[in-house]
């Protein structure tokens, strides 16, 4: 351990002492969380549950007398009812999402894209003799909407190479040398072709670091959001890295890289009703015209802008537009840029 790491270790120990998270703290946390969970559930008797319970009562009322005889009297019925209640719980539970279990490596849901199809790991491992020609290697890791050759949501790029399995049809299975890191020798894992990639580009509403995908998102926002504004004709100075849209709340987030400068420009667009409400859907906007000191005001391209330090805000009808300048741009430079902030919705 070098001195730097030692210092950090001491700092971490110091933090642990300062924070002093006790078992009581954890107990309180658990108690509070579980109390909230219970409270959230109170109104949670869903229509499906109500209908189910009503149906059960009807069945019980109609079928009770003859069933009593068949079921060996009241004790037998009681037992059945109890087990019925237990199964009702299970039925109610079906509405809830499945509980994740501990997942062994390679993880569930892992895939590699090859030949416009998903290949998922099987439990079969093969010796090197069964490995044939190289087909490709994982190019990027993540979960993009547009799947490209070599995409994976689980295997790190470059080090994970996939091959033909000797004697097998690559349309059905291939072999991936699955590695967690470059020092890992890896294992030849048989990957089964699971499904052909099918992407509805009109449904992509979030994209990052993929220009084509970002382009689709922009198209979709223009189509879906009549209040949409964006920077246009600024290809010389800005590159759009991220575009996201939450249709229910009409929230837009776009992040531009600035050519020749470090830092970014982020744009948030949201309806007035959203300001001050929950911001859990995305990294939400910060300003809503309330309270903060305005450092300057000006008009550009027909929009009246207010500047709050590094954030420029304008409002059109009931929509707020925030432009967060996370670069060294002066106000004049920002103003020049804002001339290209225009409505593009259709």
């Amino acid at each position, binding site marked *: 351990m070098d001195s730097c790491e030692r*210092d950090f270790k*001491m*700092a971490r*120990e110091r933090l642990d002492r300062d924070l002093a998270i006790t078992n009581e703290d954890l107990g309180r946390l658990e108690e509070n969380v*579980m109390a909230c969970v219970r409270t959230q559930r109170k109104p949670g008797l869903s229509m499906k549950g109500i209908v189910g319970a009503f149906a059960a009562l009807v069945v019980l009322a109609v079928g009770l007398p003859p069933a009593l005889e068949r079921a060996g009297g009241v004790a037998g019925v009681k037992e059945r009812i109890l087990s019925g209640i237990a199964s009702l719980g299970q039925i109610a539970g079906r509405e809830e999402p499945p509980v*994740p279990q501990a997942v062994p490596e390679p993880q569930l849901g892992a895939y590699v894209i090859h030949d416009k199809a998903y290949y998922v790991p099987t439990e079969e491992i093969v010796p090197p003799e069964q490995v044939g020609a190289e087909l490709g290697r994982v190019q990027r890791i993540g979960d993009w909407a547009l799947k490209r050759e070599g995409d994976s949501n689980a295997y790190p790029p470059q080090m994970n190479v996939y091959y033909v399995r000797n004697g097998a049809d690559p349309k059905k299975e291939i072999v991936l040398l699955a590695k967690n890191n470059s020092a890992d020798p890896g294992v030849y894992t048989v990957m089964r072709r699971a499904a052909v990639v099918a992407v509805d580009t009109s449904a992509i509403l979030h994209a990052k670091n993929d220009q084509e995908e970002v382009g689709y998102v922009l198209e979709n926002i223009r189509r879906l959001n009549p209040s949409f504004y964006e920077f246009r004709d600024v290809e010389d100075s800005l590159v759009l890295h991220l575009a996201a849209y939450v249709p229910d709340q009409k929230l837009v987030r776009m992040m531009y890289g600035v050519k020749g400068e470090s830092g970014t420009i982020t744009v948030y667009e949201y309806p007035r009703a959203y300001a001050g409400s929950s911001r859990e859907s995305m990294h939400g906007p910060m300003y809503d015209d309330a309270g903060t000191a305005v450092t300057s005001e000006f008009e550009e391209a027909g929009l009246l802008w207010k500047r709050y330090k590094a954030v420029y805000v304008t409002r059109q009808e009931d929509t707020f537009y925030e432009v967060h300048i996370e670069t060294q741009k002066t106000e004049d430079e920002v103003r020049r840029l804002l001339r290209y902030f225009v409505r593009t919705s259709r």
Partner: protein
Amino acid sequence: MKRDEMLREWIRAHGRMVIRTAYYYVKDKMIAEDIAQEVFLKAYAKIEEFRGTASVETWLYRITVNHCKDYVRSWAYRKLLVQQHFERARDEGDLPEDVLVKKHRGEELLAMVMKLPVKDREVILLHYFEELKVKEIAEILSDKETTVRVRMMRALKKLRQKVEEEEAYGLL
């Protein structure tokens, strides 16, 4: 395992980590505990989004980091910062023995790390305090590994400068 039991298990196994991580952002234990509560509720509500492509721990880190980032952007937090600013100004007259105690190197480094901007602080704390690998941090922060590495280098450089400045002024 039922959802409730699983949630309890997550709190017991990862509660400290979540509180600690929240503290890295908000620098206040009580707020960090409140955030931890919300993080676990969110995890419970979004359990179906946990697809098993990451460990539960990484997933919880991610929820915590995102929640904290939202929080530090909120008006409530901004108000709190202003209040803390005034409180710090009032407390500036430390007693001599307090000053001596603060010379402890671990605490000084911790204080300097905590003063870094969030973007620098998070990578340092996640790597050196939480002992996460760059790949894991990249996954948690939804960034590229190279970006994380660059941010870490930059943060370390800033930290080194601060240490040198403090040493030059005889504070360390």
